[in-house]
């Protein structure tokens, strides 16, 4: 008897933690994808960036589908306790918020990608001051050490069609989700209180990703002066320097 209960519990915990890890992963990819889209159209833009966008996007979609399946499975189960169900609903809200951001970013990347084609005689990429590559961001999204680039040279136009189709897919998926899963998002209560981000606890679940030293460098440097336009990593730079 005990054995059965125990294995059931173990199963449950396993399901929960799987769910949370997947949600974490989706969250991470969403953040990275946004980061990449911000670089579109600027001087950081390049063939590689387009490929990174494509790969990250596909990864995001895989994760989205996996998350959706897992969560719908959990939510459809009528035997879950009230507390568990509340928790799953919270996870569901996290999932849908992530998807919303993803959908918007996908649409924007389509728009900007169309406005700034790469294979033109004179590129007019906006000189934003960003010149570095985004390969490490993409690597983080894909959870690899180094990115490999193997796309064709016309990826900037070829990818856009796929992108359009994927946007429609995502839209449909979200509509379906809303209709099928009965979760009232406004009824969910967040676990984190205001200012929770200041503490160094990490992801939604129980996996720890090591200590974040998010901006320890930034911590002390801000002179508290409102006119300081940016929090500069090592405190000694001042933004008010003359231009060369």
């Amino acid at each position: 008897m005990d054995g059965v209960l125990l294995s059931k519990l173990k199963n449950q915990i396993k399901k929960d933690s799987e769910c949370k890890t997947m949600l974490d992963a989706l969250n991470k990819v969403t953040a990275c994808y946004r980061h990449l889209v911000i670089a579109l159209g600027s001087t950081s833009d390049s063939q590689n960036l387009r490929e990174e966008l494509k790969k990250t996007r596909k990864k995001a979609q895989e994760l989205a589908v996996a998350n959706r399946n897992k969560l719908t499975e959990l939510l459809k189960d009528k035997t879950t306790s009230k507390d568990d169900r509340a928790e799953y609903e919270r996870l569901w809200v996290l999932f849908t918020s992530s998807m919303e951001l993803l959908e918007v970013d996908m649409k924007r990347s389509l728009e900007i990608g169309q406005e700034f084609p790469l294979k033109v005689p004179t590129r007019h990429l906006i000189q934003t001051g960003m010149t570095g590559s985004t390969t490490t961001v993409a690597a983080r999204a894909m959870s690899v050490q180094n990115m490999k680039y193997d796309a064709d040279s016309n990826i900037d136009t070829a990818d856009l069609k796929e992108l359009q189709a994927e946007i429609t897919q995502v839209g449909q998926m979200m509509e379906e989700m809303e209709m099928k899963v009965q979760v009232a998002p406004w009824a969910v209560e967040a676990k984190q209180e205001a200012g929770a981000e200041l503490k160094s606890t990490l992801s939604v679940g129980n996996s720890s990703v090591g200590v974040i030293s998010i901006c320890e460098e930034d911590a002390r440097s801000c002179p508290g002066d409102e006119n300081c336009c940016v929090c500069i990593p090592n405190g000694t730079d001042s933004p008010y320097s003359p231009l060369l």
Partner: protein
Amino acid sequence: MERVIVAMQDPDMGVKMRNQRLLITVIPHAMTGNDVIEWLIQKYNITEEEARHLGGLLVQYGYIYPLRDPRSLLLRSDDSPYRFQTPYFWTSSRWPASELDYAIYLAKKNIRKQGELVDYEKENYSILHKRINHTWDFVVMQAREQLRASKQRRKADRIVLECQEQAYWLINKPCVNMPLYYHYTTTIQLRYYYYTTIIHRRALGRNRVKSSICLESFMKYSEQYLHHDPIMSGCLPSNPWISDDTAHWTINTDMVGTPTRLRVERWSFSFMELLNDSMGRREFMIYLEKEFSAENLCFWVACEDLRHGESSKIILKVEEVYKNFLAPGAARWVNIDSKTMERTLEGIKRPHRFIMDDAQMHIYFLMKKDSYPRYLKSELYKNMLAKAIVPQETKKSVFPFMRRQRHSSPSPAMVTQATEDDGKAKGAGPTGTSSTTNSQI
């Protein structure tokens, strides 16, 4: 504006770029306000004042942001440094700033500045925390992840990123006090739910009749109209579609001299039947004139005209109706109860098609309850009924081999003319006596 910005990027003809040096880091792609203005003057051949104005707009809309004194969104024509904003952060009505994004930004800033947010930012933060509380965990998660992602870039790029974001939110932060900038998909969802709720409420409020009751009345209706249905009971004298004899249509025209019996019988089925038949209406009017209450019907007719008539004539018609029927001392004053009269008179100040509906309904029911039953009992009606004709059914052709002449029947519009011809039609009876006898009123 976006084209201007793109034109500025041209490596040969664009704005002169300089480097911004921050002690150790050097960030390229900065320009002075002066550069921008000069370029605008040259490229578009405009005056300095215009160039300053145009440049100022570029800053206000966030296409260019100042590097020094970022909160002051002006284009200074000196050596103040500016930089271009990345396309993602261009102000666009297609992509309004969402509260969710703003919340994430504030959370990020909170982390970066260890809680040292500016006053209004602190306020916005707590308002948002309450408003989108259900997704606050996500806000925190995303904020952390976004910061981790930007850590992957090199320092110069990170600085630029932060500047860009700050510039964007200085211009685009949603007005958190008034719920104008909702999360855009939430708006769409909200609207969808709002309208569905309205539809469902309306559906709930509708009167529902038990099927046992409405089926009974349907049965009654079917029984009553059984003999009047040309398909169920055949039509006299004969079905024009089969016999090519248009007598049926001729004797049932609007203003025929002697109506058919079926038609007059129908007037007794309901008040609406009487009113919808132009001959019935005419007869009823005659009756009312005898009773000195014809103004009611005139009023009703005038209101119908108002409801179904031309829009351009509405005001005119309302005035006339008022003059003739509602004004104190009017020639054909109608007797409406005081409340309805008040409401109608109020409404006349802003006339529209349906302004007379209440009064019209009142008069309609007055006639229906009072004059109509009396009409049905009156001599006038009984005489009409007695006079009404019952056409004889055509005899079927005796010669089975005779082929029916196939020719197209004249359209009902020409029936009045064909009345003469139909004297020859088979067994069409008293059609010949039709339009000449009864006087038209």
